[in-house]
C-alpha cells in the first residue's frame, strides 16, 4: 500500500512541477528571449528537459553513496563485502532500480509535457539520444563513485555531491541557457558534464539536430566518461582499501 501511495504521490509531484514550469514559461511568451533562440524559443520545452536530465545527475551522484551509507548504517556492509562479488557490481546492481525509476520519471515528464501542455519535441534521432543519455549517466556515475569512496573513508555526507550539484545548478544550463552567464563565468560551465549533456539533448529534441551537428558535445561526453569513470572506480577501491586497513568498514 505504502509503495502504491508513494508512486501516486510521485506522479502528482511530477505533474505539479511540470505545471509550475508551464506557468513560468508564460512569462517569456510575449517578449521572446534572445537567449532561447538557439533552442527554438520555447522556455517550457527548454526547462522541462533541463529538469528531467537533472534527475539523472541527482540519482547518479547520490545513489552509490547512499547505498554505501545505508549498508554502513544497517550493518550489512561487511556481509556484502565478504562475498566474492565486487563492490562496483554490488553498487551498480543495487542502484539499477533508482536509474530505472528515474528513466520512468523522465518519460512521465515528457508525456505530461507533450500530452497536456503541448510540448513539441523531435524524436528523429532516438539512437543518438540514447547514446548521449548513456554517456551522460556514465559520466555522472564516475562522480557518484568518487562520492561513494568519500563516504567509505569519512562516513559523512560527501562535499563533492554538494559542489557538483550546486555548480551544475548555477552553471550547467538547467534552468537558463549558459549564454545568460557573464562571459568570464561561461568557460567554467564547460567543465561540467551536464552542460554538454543538456546542450546535445536539447539540440536533438528541440531542433531535430543530427550526430554531425552535436558530435563535439558527444566527444566531450566520451572524454568525461573515460576520465571520470576510471577515476571513480579507483577512488572507490582506494576508499575500501583504506577502510580495510583502518578497520573502519563498519563504523558510521
Amino acid at each position, binding site marked *: 500500500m505504502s509503495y502504491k501511495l508513494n508512486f501516486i504521490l510521485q506522479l502528482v509531484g511530477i505533474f505539479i512541477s511540470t505545471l509550475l514550469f508551464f506557468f513560468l514559461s508564460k512569462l517569456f511568451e510575449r517578449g521572446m528571449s534572445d537567449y532561447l533562440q538557439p533552442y527554438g524559443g520555447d522556455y517550457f520545452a527548454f526547462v522541462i528537459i533541463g529538469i528531467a536530465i537533472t534527475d539523472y545527475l541527482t540519482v547518479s551522484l547520490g545513489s552509490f553513496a547512499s547505498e554505501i551509507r545505508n549498508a554502513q548504517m544497517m550493518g550489512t556492509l561487511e*556481509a556484502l563485502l*565478504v562475498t*566474492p*562479488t565486487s563492490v562496483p557490481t*554490488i553498487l551498480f546492481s543495487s542502484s539499477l532500480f533508482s536509474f530505472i525509476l528515474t528513466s520512468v520519471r523522465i518519460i512521465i515528464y515528457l508525456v505530461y509535457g507533450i500530452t497536456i501542455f503541448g510540448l513539441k519535441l523531435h524524436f528523429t534521432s532516438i539512437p543518438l539520444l540514447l547514446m548521449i543519455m548513456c554517456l551522460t549517466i556514465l559520466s555522472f556515475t564516475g562522480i557518484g563513485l568518487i562520492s561513494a569512496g568519500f563516504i567509505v573513508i569519512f562516513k559523512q555526507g560527501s562535499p563533492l555531491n554538494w559542489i557538483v550539484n550546486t555548480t551544475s545548478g548555477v552553471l550547467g544550463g538547467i534552468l537558463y541557457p549558459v549564454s545568460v552567464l557573464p562571459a568570464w563565468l561561461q568557460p567554467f560551465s564547460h567543465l561540467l558534464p551536464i552542460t554538454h549533456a543538456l546542450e546535445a539533448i536539447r539540440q536533438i529534441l528541440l531542433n531535430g539536430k543530427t550526430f554531425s551537428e552535436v558530435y563535439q558535445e558527444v566527444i566531450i561526453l566520451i572524454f568525461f566518461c573515460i576520465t571520470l569513470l576510471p577515476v571513480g572506480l579507483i577512488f572507490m577501491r582506494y576508499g575500501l582499501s583504506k577502510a580495510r*586497513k583502518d*578497520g573502519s568498514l563498519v563504523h558510521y
Partner: protein
Amino acid sequence: MSDIIELHKISKTFIERSWRSVLFRSIPKKTEALKDITLTIKKGEIFGLLGPNGAGKTTLIKILATLIIPDGGAGKIFGYDLIRQSQHIRRIIGLVNMSERSFYWRLTGRQNLNFFAALHNLTGKQKEKRVQTILELVDLEEKAETQFMKYSSGQKQRLSLARALLSNPEILLMDEPTQNLDPIASSTFLKLAVDVLKKKEGKTILWCTHNLREAEDVCSRIAIIHRGAVIESGDLEYMCSLINTESFYEFTIDHCPERTLQEIGITPLRIFRNNGSLDFELQVRSNDVPSLVRQLVENGINVRSCKVKVIELDEVFEKIINRAH
C-alpha cells in the same frame, strides 16, 4: 591432516586519527590489536580461539575474512595469500558473526538467503536448491517465509550460519556464534556444529569464543589470545598439562598423625579427617607422584587412593592469563 590456515607473525595496529591530531600534529592514538600471531589450523578440525573481550579475536577473524588488512606478517588460506588473493579466499570461507544487523529485517529468511546466494554467483534452480538444502540443514525450513525481524535469537544465528554455508565453503569463521543465545539454543547450535558441520560435512571451523565450556565441548585444539598475542596453543590435553606440572592431587590414606606426613616432607594444602582415614590435597608435579606414594608406603602408611583433581578449562585459562601479566 594438512594445514588449511597458516598465519605467520600477523600484526595489526589501529591508529585513531582525529582532525585535532592532524591539525596540531599530535601523536594519534594507537591500539595494538594483534602482535605477531602465528597459528596453523588443520583441515577438518574445530579450532578454538579463546580470549577475554578485547583480546583481538574479532580482529583476527576479520583479517581471515579479508575485511581487515594486516600491517605485518603473512597468511595463507588453502594456499591463497591473505592479502593478494582476497577474492579467491572469499569463495572458500563463510563468516558467521554475532551481528543480526547484517540481515535485511523486512525480508524473509529465504529472501535474505536468495539475495546473498546471488552475491555468491548462484542463480536459477541451482540457487533455489542450495537455499532449500541449507534451510533444511539448519532446521529453518518452517520459518523460511517469516520476516527476519520476527526470528528468535537462535533462529537469527542459525540463519547467519545458513548464509555462511551458501557457497559450501571449506572453512567457517565463527565469531562468538552463541553469544546471544540461551542455554538450549546454544546447545542446539553446538550440536549442529559438531554433528553436522564437522562430522558430516567435514568443515574446518575457527571458533572464537570467551566461553570455555563451549570450547571444551566443540574444539579439538585451542589457542588462547590475550592482549593481541597468542599466549598458548595446543590440544585440550596439552592445555591442561600446562598446569598439570603443578596439579592438585587428592590422597586418601589410612589414619595417621599429621606429624608423620611432615616428617616425610609432605605439606598438604588441606586435610580432612574421616572415620579411619585421612584425606589431603597436595600440589605436586605429576612426575613426583609415584615416588611420593612409594615414600608413604615405605613409612607404613596405607594409600587407599590417589586422584588427580579434575582441572576445568577455566582454571587453565585463568592461570595462563595470570601468568601472562
